[in-house]
């Protein structure tokens, strides 16, 4: 009759739409719970990067006299990219713990929980990025074609962040003190990423190691593209994408193997 699709592919399609549904419902409820009873609600998500900007700007521009042109925009772009990485990885580990009751009682796949966290912070990230550009143009700055590189860099950041989240969630499920380790690691990585300073300040023998940090690579290239109007070197861009792909593949493999194993230990 009219049956043209193979049953297997319809099953897959059905599964995908099922997962999308659950992700939608989970992020919806997370949103409700997160802002329940708070006066400013959603605004907090957008206030946070600007508060951080104000603090770091005062300290580094006025006290330490960092001489970077358009330092406010320089700083803000770094903060927004960094916050997405840091908040998402942190929230995914917290997410599986708060969803422990669902994971243990229903056959909700753990990857759906992590994905819903990523989707949730992705919205905040994209809206904050839009606010960044309003700020950017309000300051009288201009974009050139090089800004198109963002279309590669932003997805790289998202995939990288997803990969790291998938990698650390099983660790967090297994070890109670992983949360503290990750907090410290994020703090180290914050200073090992050129958010408040320029990466050219890193002394020569260390800079090649420094540039293995994919978050640093993405932020450096994003600034070049948006603020300094030049395209990143193709080779460097390829290295960034390669690191991202490796991290994601590794994270996904670990998660596939151990995502369900530790549900009982939550």
């Amino acid at each position, binding site marked *: 009759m009219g049956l043209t699709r193979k049953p297997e592919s319809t099953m897959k399609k059905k599964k995908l*739409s*099922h997962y999308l*549904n*659950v992700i*939608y*419902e*989970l992020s*919806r*409820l997370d949103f*409700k*719970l997160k802002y*329940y009873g708070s006066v400013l609600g959603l605004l907090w998500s957008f206030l946070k990067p600007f508060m951080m900007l104000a603090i770091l700007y005062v300290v580094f521009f006025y006290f330490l006299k960092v001489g970077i042109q358009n330092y406010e925009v320089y700083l803000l772009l770094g903060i927004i990219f960094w916050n997405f990485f840091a908040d998402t990885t942190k929230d995914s580990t917290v997410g599986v713990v708060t969803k422990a*009751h*669902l*994971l*243990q*009682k*229903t*056959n*909700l796949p753990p990857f759906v929980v992590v994905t819903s966290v990523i989707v949730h912070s992705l919205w905040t990230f994209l809206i904050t990025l839009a606010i960044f550009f309003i700020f950017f143009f309000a300051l009288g700055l201009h974009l050139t074609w090089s800004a198109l590189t963002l279309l590669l860099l932003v997805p790289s950041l998202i995939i990288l962040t997803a990969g790291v989240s998938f990698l650390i969630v099983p660790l967090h499920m297994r*070890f*109670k*003190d*992983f949360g503290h*380790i990750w907090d410290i690691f994020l703090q180290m990585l914050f200073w090992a990423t050129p958010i408040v300073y320029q990466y050219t300040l890193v002394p020569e023998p260390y800079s090649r190691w420094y540039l293995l940090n994919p978050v640093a690579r993405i932020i450096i290239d994003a600034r070049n593209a948006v603020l300094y109007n030049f395209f990143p070197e193709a080779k460097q861009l390829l290295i960034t994408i390669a690191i991202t792909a490796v991290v994601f593949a590794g994270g996904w493999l670990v998660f596939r193997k151990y995502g*369900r*194993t530790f*549900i*009982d230990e939550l």
Partner: protein
Amino acid sequence: MIKAKGIAKLYRIPHEKTTTLFELVLGYIKDQVTYENFYALKNVNFSIDKGEMVGLVGKNGSGKTTLLKILGGIVPPTEGEFQIEGTVAPLLSLSVGFHHELTAQENLYLYGAILGMPRKEIKDKLDRIFDFAGVGKFRDMKVKNFSSGMIARLAFATMVQTDPDVLLLDEIFAVGDKDFKPQCFSVFEDYKRRGKTIIFASHDLTAVAEHCERTLLLDKGELKAFGKTKDVLDQYGGL
């Protein structure tokens, strides 16, 4: 249809319970981490046909819930494999992970989605679910204010609406009142007629005897018997 082949589940329980990474690393260095290998299930084999409602009995800690968790796809087995035809709905505790700070209706949207119903479909079935559960008045009340019996009814009513092919039930009558039981059994009888498969784990042996043709008996993780309910229950009585 459910087929289980050589299913085993191993839990490694550290002798000195290590929960933090620091303690574990310290333990490895001092060579102190030893594990007790605890098999919650050992080499479990069985095959259940379509349209069958099978009882699952055994003492506390015999592996009933672990078996249902594995069949429901919640935790992977350590060894062995299983085959299930169609959609599976595990009902492993009658709180099924409802969030206490959300209203009944909000919880149903999430739970329904997990069971495979899109928002629109749940919306259409919401009235029927609340009717069946008999808690329609409390739609917008937070679940933390519900009694455990009311939560059980809601969970069961939602599950019924998803119309699964395989139903895994773990001690679902623990909190329901006298009306809840017959309501559930009329659903089960209907499911049997429609060729669905049910595994019914319970300590309510009268209910098992009344509704299950065949029964599985687990003891210390091993499948001691699988056959006519009457014989199996006799054997269970002698354990």
